[in-house]
């Protein structure tokens, strides 16, 4: 299914004509792009974004179908509806791109991101860090007498919130994977 065969429905739209295409409001969209796993394909996708001046908030990529040689690129981007439509159409035009899905308009989807946080501190700060980690269901994956590395999974907003809380306690460094997303439901 190409970007243009997106089923029309109450929460979804065709690539062109159902939403107010030329509205000025910036929207945040999550796109799932299935691509042929060949050299240079990521450069093509990134080059499209930089060459045409689109935003990338996060981008993840990994092979998802070894026998079929397919990788899945999940891109979180922002733009007006017209720009978002352009992005999906331009992505669909890249030859090794098999499918483009705008998960934000095609229906409900789940989004998860994984992050590692290094927090250092002593005494009460260490206890507080563990307490907050428990609230956020973050796991300790490394520990020294003066530091923890937490692993946390969730929506980008949850990870942002966790980072905001950890910063005053002694956040040293963090690494985030970017968003992985799937549409809800059986298909």
């Amino acid at each position, binding site marked *: 299914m*190409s970007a*243009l065969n997106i089923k029309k429905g109450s929460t979804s739209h065709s690539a*062109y004509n159902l939403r107010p295409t030329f509205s000025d409001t910036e929207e945040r969209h999550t796109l799932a792009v299935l691509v042929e796993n060949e050299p*240079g394909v990521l450069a093509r996708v990134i080059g499209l974004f930089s*060459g045409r001046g689109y935003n990338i908030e996060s981008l993840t990529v990994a092979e998802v179908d070894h026998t079929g040689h397919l990788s899945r690129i999940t891109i979180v981007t922002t733009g007006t509806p017209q720009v978002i*439509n352009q992005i999906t*159409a331009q992505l669909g*035009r890249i030859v090794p791109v098999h499918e483009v899905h705008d998960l934000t308009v095609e229906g409900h989807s789940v989004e998860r991101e994984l992050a590692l946080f290094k927090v250092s501190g002593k005494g009460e700060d260490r206890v507080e860090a563990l307490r907050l980690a428990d609230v956020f269901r973050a796991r300790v994956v490394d520990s020294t007498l003066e530091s923890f590395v937490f692993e946390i999974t969730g929506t980008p907003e949850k990870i942002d919130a966790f980072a905001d809380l950890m910063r005053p306690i002694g956040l040293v460094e963090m690494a985030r994977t970017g968003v992985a997303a799937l549409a809800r439901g059986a298909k």
Partner: protein
Amino acid sequence: MSAQMTGAKMVVQALIDQGVDTVFGYPGGAVLPIYDEVFQQNSIRHVLVRHEQGAIHAAEGYARATGKVGVALVTSGPGATNAVTGLTDALMDSIPLVVFSGQVPTFMIGSDAFQEADTVGITRPCTKHNWLVKDTEKLSNTIHEAFHVAASGRPGPVLVDIPKDVQFAAADYTAPRAMTSHYRPQVKGDIEGITDLVKAIETAKKPIFYTGGGVINSGPAASQLLRELVDGTGFPITSTLMGLGAYPASGDNWLGMLGMHGLYESNMAMHDCDLMINIGARFDDRITGRIDAFSPNSKKVHIDVDPSSINKVIRTDIAIVGDVAHVLEDVLKVWKSRGRKTDRAGLDEWWAQIADWKTVNCLAYTQEGKTIRPQYAVERLEALTKHRKDRFISTEVGQHQMWAAQYMGFDDPNRWMTSGGLGTMGYGFPASIGVQMGHPDALVINVAGEASWLMNMQELGTAVQYRLPVKQFILNNERLGMVRQWQELLHGERYSSSWSEALPDFVKLAEAFGAKGICVSDPDDLDDAIMEMLDHDGPVIFDCLVEKHENCFPMIPSGKAHNEMLLGEAETQGVIDSKGSVLV
């Protein structure tokens, strides 16, 4: 069917199997094995150009004049980087090309080897797709896929980069078979949109067809169907620079080209229409002028094979993604089955309005005195050649290009080769060589400016070597005419670097290469000189000395709307404000 052969032989075999008869190229270290194979066969003609940019433009000219895929062969490093302008030109104008470049051997890639460049990296944004083939096993299929990608959907240039060791190694050759490629652009239009379009056709009072290069790219059937639809509905039709010839200029409904230097009646009709049917055009900024004032009261229909063209610039009311010929066939079918209805009374009024605009006579000029007006030169060329059914015109870029588009008429598609999107000076001469290779007996004329022409003048060697009787019709104003015009209108008549102080003697230049040169400066001698050019069996440089300060009108100034055209010198004072002057 498969047979063992070297990668170099595979290239030649694949070209033969793809029906290629002509390749434009320039040899070098990294493509020597392929050139060795080219030497040992007679199925494919190789045309040795003098610069790789010339090879790509020649392949473009060949592709546009024949409707086939153009093929070029260049070496690694500088060979490939010299091809970049041509590739970008072909991408912007959707011209199908397959370009082969040599590459250093796979084990040396990344070592900054002699004549190494990251060719697939450099050409990624200026090709439709490209491949670095690291394994001879995959070479034949990649080449077949390359032809498929170049020619299907919205056509475009592709590049296959072949390291030298891959050319030497042997593997099984695979013949082209039923394509297994997943790349299959949509060609049939959505019937819902087509029906909506037909309903709009039935009720429109002030409709216009606005057609572009997509009609030509879709093939001769598309032009035929377009003519049937235009003549059947009786709607007026205008076209972009790229689409000239799809509907005949001698046809009853033809208004002339639209856009920045388009005809008054075309632009006024675009502005005032109530139904705009865009077929294979892309609302380029040369066409729309000021976006928020573009055809404010019309319902806009857009037929395009490329989904990303839709709603890119102008909001479309009815979008039909599909190949022009397929879509037009369905439009005609539906329109006929619903009784071939149009609003006759409304149309009569609309045509009366158009007739009124035509009386402005926007292309009028007067030829007087002893200096040739460039418009006059183009008009005489048109008058003396338009009876020739086999006439092909290419152009360079600038004022002469616009005058050729305004004053010459094209009754068939694939007869007009010009660099539209990229505006590449230096395009026309090599393109004319490509056209002549595709049509050896045809009359091929490149309408040029002296500055553009000099950009790829080395190809005169190619024209002479292959005895290609291409006519180089140079309007010589000793200026970069269009740059000069903009400096006059926008930069206080400060003519910064826009004139040539050291032009060659074009007659002697022609003779130095073994071609014929003709120089004319007197309007009274013009016709005879043109006839002398046409009668000469060989390449001719025609140096036509014209008025140096002529401006090209009509003109929609930057940042203005279609109905704010300038028709002549008197209207140019202070019309372009600072906001408009940042636009190009």
